């Protein structure tokens, strides 16, 4: 397989400012205005966050959930480059783009959320002040580095466009850069798998410090493991969503067979999550709390049920080959992962009875606006650059659903 070039991806072309894009950009513009208000008035006046719930929607959704959706690139890379399933290669670029955008939004949201964002540069540069025990420091550094890695991994798409462009300078630059990228890409991609392993698990470790104030249904030393496993499943969900929508709007192949087989890889991963989640509850003697079906038990049960439902929907290759079904399963998976993260960060966290949190309109609209901007950027970029594979896929697909550890008959 080819890491940097030789992709059969083609720019979709067509008009940039379609009605959809304009509508999305208008929503994003509203967010830009509100962001200005947030900086003018401060966090207290514009958000519902408080000294009890010091982290709100922006951290729980934009960062913790958004980057998990952005793990599509990570999940596909694991499959293509480590499990050596080169046939899934057409999924790589669009997944990378989704990831790069998702992570960029997350990084931006952090800047909104910080009380003193103009000091954020100190985090990467003042290394002599680094606190080796701070999980947040690790998360911050990893996410910054991964953002960079994602755009580098995606850069061949932009360079290919430059190579085919009219400008001699651009062409020159691309022709000189592409071979270098091709040679070094392996190391970048490996980094692109190491970094998410580190920080996605650490997003779970973050709340280990809040342990004493975390509801026992979620307070387990296995938080990092559960966050890591579920991010792969959520990333897969995002890839299915993106593929399905791309096929609908751009008439490109939805790569149905590929997604279905990919689902075969995800199935054991989701099952593993569920197994660990439930065994952990049993071992820590929390089944009673779950079955109490109070506010906490119910939310935990819904979260577990959503994971289980996605497993049922994806149980066999024939089920997965029905695109509508696979799509629903993926939505279910994304919802499950989102709920799990919200549960840990907002519901399980208990600063005391007299504190409460529900996001303010400003917080909500900014988040919605950022997502709208992200979707608009995706549409524009796939129209301009070779991201999606042209026409319907002719790649031969391994017909049997591949499970983890199964061997391939293609040799």
């Amino acid at each position, binding site marked *: 397989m080819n890491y940097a070039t030789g992709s059969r991806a083609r720019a979709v072309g067509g008009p940039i400012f379609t009605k959809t894009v304009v509508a999305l950009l208008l929503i994003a513009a509203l967010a830009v205005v509100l962001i200005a208000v947030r900086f003018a008035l401060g966090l207290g006046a514009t958000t519902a966050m408080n*000294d009890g719930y010091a982290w709100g929607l922006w951290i729980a959704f934009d960062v913790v959930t958004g980057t998990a959706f952005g793990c599509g690139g990570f999940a596909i890379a694991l499959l293509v480059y480590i*499990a050596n399933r080169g046939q899934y290669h057409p999924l790589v670029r669009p997944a990378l783009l989704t990831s790069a955008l998702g992570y960029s939004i997350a990084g931006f949201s952090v800047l909104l959320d910080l009380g003193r*964002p103009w000091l*954020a540069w100190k985090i990467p540069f003042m290394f002599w002040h680094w606190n080796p025990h701070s*999980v947040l*420091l690790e998360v911050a550094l990893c996410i910054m580095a991964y953002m960079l890695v994602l755009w580098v991994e995606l850069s061949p798409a932009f360079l290919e466009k430059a190579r085919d462009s009219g400008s001699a300078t651009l062409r020159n630059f691309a022709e000189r850069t592409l071979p270098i990228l091709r040679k070094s890409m392996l190391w970048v991609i*490996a980094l692109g798998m190491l970094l998410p392993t580190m920080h996605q698990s650490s997003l779970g470790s973050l709340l280990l410090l809040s342990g004493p104030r975390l509801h026992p249904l979620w307070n387990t030393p296995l938080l990092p493991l559960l966050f890591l496993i579920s991010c792969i499943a959520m990333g897969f969900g995002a890839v299915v969503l993106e593929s399905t929508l791309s096929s609908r709007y751009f008439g490109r192949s939805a790569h149905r067979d590929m997604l279905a087989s990919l689902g075969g890889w995800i199935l054991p991963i989701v099952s593993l999550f569920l197994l660990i989640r439930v065994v952990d509850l049993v071992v820590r003697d929390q089944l009673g709390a779950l079955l109490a079906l109070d506010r906490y038990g119910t939310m935990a049960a819904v979260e577990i049920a959503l994971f289980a439902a996605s497993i049922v929907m994806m149980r066999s290759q024939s089920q997965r080959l029905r695109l509508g079904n696979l799509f629903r399963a993926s939505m279910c998976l994304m919802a499950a992962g989102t709920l799990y993260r919200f549960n840990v960060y907002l519901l399980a966290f208990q600063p005391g009875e007299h504190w409460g949190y529900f996001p303010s309109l400003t917080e909500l609209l900014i988040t919605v606006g950022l997502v709208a901007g992200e979707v608009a950027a995706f549409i524009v970029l796939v129209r301009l650059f070779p991201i999606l594979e042209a026409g319907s896929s002719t790649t031969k697909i391994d017909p049997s659903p591949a499970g983890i*550890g199964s061997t391939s008959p293609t040799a």
Partner: protein
Amino acid sequence: MGISRRFALKSVATAAGTALARAIAPAKADAYERVEPADDAVGMLYDTTKCIGCKSCMTACNEANNLPYDTRGESAGRWHMPFDLNEYCKNIIKLYKDDETGEQSFVKRQCMHCVDPACTTACMLGALYKAEHGIVRYNADLCVGCRYCEMACPFNIPKFEWESRAGKIVKCELCAHLVAEGKLPGCCEVCPTGAVIYGNRAELLAEAHRRIEAEPDRYVPHVYGETEAGGTQVLYLAHLDFEKLGLPDYGDRPVPQTVKTIQHGIYQGFVAPVGLYAMLAAVMMRNRRQQSEEDTKDEG
């Protein structure tokens, strides 16, 4: 081919698994190096049985720290009336009252100056740090306002300047600036009944036990903070369950223990991440080589 793929998956899974096992195993084995209070650790001892709820210490705290009074809300600009610790309040006297039993008690809340603090473990650049005498201090120059300290502190102590556009963290620093001049912390200076006193932690602890021994009927026979959450430098004596006063039974396990053990297990000497990186790269190279061999075969 089939075998090598299996090998590839296995080796990566093993690398990841080893990292995890290393992370979880020591958590069980309790290899955690407990932080002991320094010999010169200072602190405060607060005794609910002596507190009359005059709140002099609250205003004294604002005076000592140049902090404006919190006259928002119902006080309508007239009194210092914070609802809880907040950006204008580093020290608060709360009242616990049970109408049925008639039990009541005041309780003073401020930073506990933990021996092994969650807040300093959380803070990325060490804006919150353990300073001289074990006082947990704050350096705004290194604070980005992430508020992770608020999420981490088991006692809900650090507060954020929500009303500011450059929000900093506000919390009791044991009046380190006064202590350095040989003065008493604001609250201890003004307390008319000696309900809160300042001193060397070891001496305060001895004093607390002396009081319990002298008047066993007066106190719950326990000094809160002696071991709680790994020990705190502010100690409490009470005549009611500490839990009722908002001082939960956290056991004596330091709050940072779990996360430090796991992080240490995974990241010690960066062996596991570097190993995993090398493994990922090696597997990819192997895959690539096989691929090109296949391609040549196909063409030939």
